[in-house]
């Protein structure tokens, strides 16, 4: 009989780092609930940081961000069958879109909170998010609109690189490209296309 420790909450934690995202996604779609856990483990930290960069300072309490991200991930995994994202890039940009909507809701909610109304000086601005600070809220919104006009490949390449900090090697893997070089080329074309779209929308 193989040796094993006492039972614990996750029956196969050792697989969390090795099984491919595509394979885990296929298992979740097939109804294998055990595959949710490693997916959660893999993407929670990445999405947590992503959200951290986009939430206003006041709403950015670490615990809040964790809850927001974890809820979003769980909900997304519960609805996976409806969306069928097969490759990592599609999965991550799908999660990112849901999370973006959540972040917007969160900011709207923070503005509406009645207890804040009495503290007039604190109501008006929740404070800029780190990314707003870096490139401006207006530009962030322009970027989002431009992104929506790109092809799926282009959009995913940009999201993976600029928002999640993936290397060209990682992008190649996440988007099913043959090499890092192929991914670099795709990314270059995607960035120029986005620059054109942004320029035209001016």
């Amino acid at each position, binding site marked *: 009989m193989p040796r094993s420790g006492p*039972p614990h909450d996750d029956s196969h934690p050792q697989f969390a780092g090795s099984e491919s995202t595509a394979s885990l996604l296929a298992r979740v779609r097939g109804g294998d609930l055990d595959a949710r856990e490693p997916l959660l483990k893999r993407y929670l930290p990445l999405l947590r940081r992503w959200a951290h960069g986009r939430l206003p300072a006041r709403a950015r309490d670490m615990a809040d961000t964790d809850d927001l991200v974890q809820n979003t991930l769980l*909900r997304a995994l519960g609805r996976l069958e409806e969306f069928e994202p097969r490759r990592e890039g599609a999965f991550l940009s799908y999660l990112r879109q849901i999370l973006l909507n959540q972040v917007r809701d969160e900011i709207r909610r923070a503005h509406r909170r009645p207890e804040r109304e009495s503290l007039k000086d604190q109501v008006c601005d929740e404070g800029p998010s780190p990314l707003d600070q870096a490139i401006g809220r207006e530009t962030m919104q322009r970027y989002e609109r431009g992104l929506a006009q790109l092809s799926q490949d282009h959009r995913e390449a940009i999201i993976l690189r600029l928002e999640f900090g993936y290397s060209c090697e990682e992008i190649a893997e996440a988007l099913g490209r043959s090499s890092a070089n192929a991914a670099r080329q795709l990314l270059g074309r995607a960035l120029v296309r986005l620059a054109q779209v942004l320029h035209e929308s001016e």
Partner: protein
Amino acid sequence: MNPNELDHLYRIAEAIGDGQVVDWEGEARARPELTSYLDELRMLETMGAATAAVSPGTDHVAEVSTMGKLEERVRTALAERYRIQRVLGRGAMAVVFLAEDPRHGRVVAIKVFDPRKASSVEPERFLREIAIVARLQHPHIVPLFDSGSEKGLLWFAMPYVEGETLRVLLARHRQLPLDDAVRFATELAEALDVAHRAGVVHRDLKPENVLLSSGHALLADFGIARLFRESQTATLTSPGTSLGTPNYMSPEQVLADPAAIGPPSDQYALACLLYEMLVGEPPFAGRTSDVVQHHLTTKPPRASALRPGLHPALDAVIAKGMAKSPADRYASAGELAAAARAAAAGR
């Protein structure tokens, strides 16, 4: 834009993708006609850099170092009583360490709850709950040796049992021989009845919590689910969405009705478990939202229809154990097990 201009922009964009430094002023001077595109690209480069600044390094490294820190904290916190040897397993909420207990000359498994996940659990409440569980003594219950809340860490120690979980056995064989399935159910029922008489409801009976050692079933993690489920409800807002599996969840647990959750809830999970041991999959599987709905409204499928040769009387036993209303189930887990034994013998 002509092909030459486009190629020029591609080169710059690829350099951005590679994280190279771009001489923006020089580029703008050399290609004034491309200025507006260059400005957009420069904005995108800034955005990427800002993201990197928000999230320095890779998350993987951060996670690993947090785990390393936890191990170090555990080692220090428990240094007087235990020698931590290695990690046996990690779960969603806790890490299990293999440790030596030099005072008693034995090897133990220590479950330490991740302080980030357990921060809302009051140490006093944790220790109180553990003390109740520690009084449970039964051959089919994994005993508790020790517990504590040192330096913000909640932990308990249990014997290190050589064996495997029922989950692993099911993964290997899918369906178990009828005799084994009924015997495991009987052993678990005995454990549950003893706990129920002591006022402890397990609340999280699942194959992962059943340890098999020398061919017998041992039930672990009594009552722990309550501490953490309750502290989690605030973070897991939508009903039915919890980190745990919904596969063995009674209707009253799905509805999160604390007044209705009791011994019959464990019996419901036991019936689901018996079904899975016989059929190879839980009565309801699939998407969480569907599973949860099925627990509330769907009659359990007939095991005998999926495993030819199985006596249909077993279907009735499982159906009664999985009755939607707790009042319609057997009076005890032991009664369910007895009925299962009779049905299996064709009586």
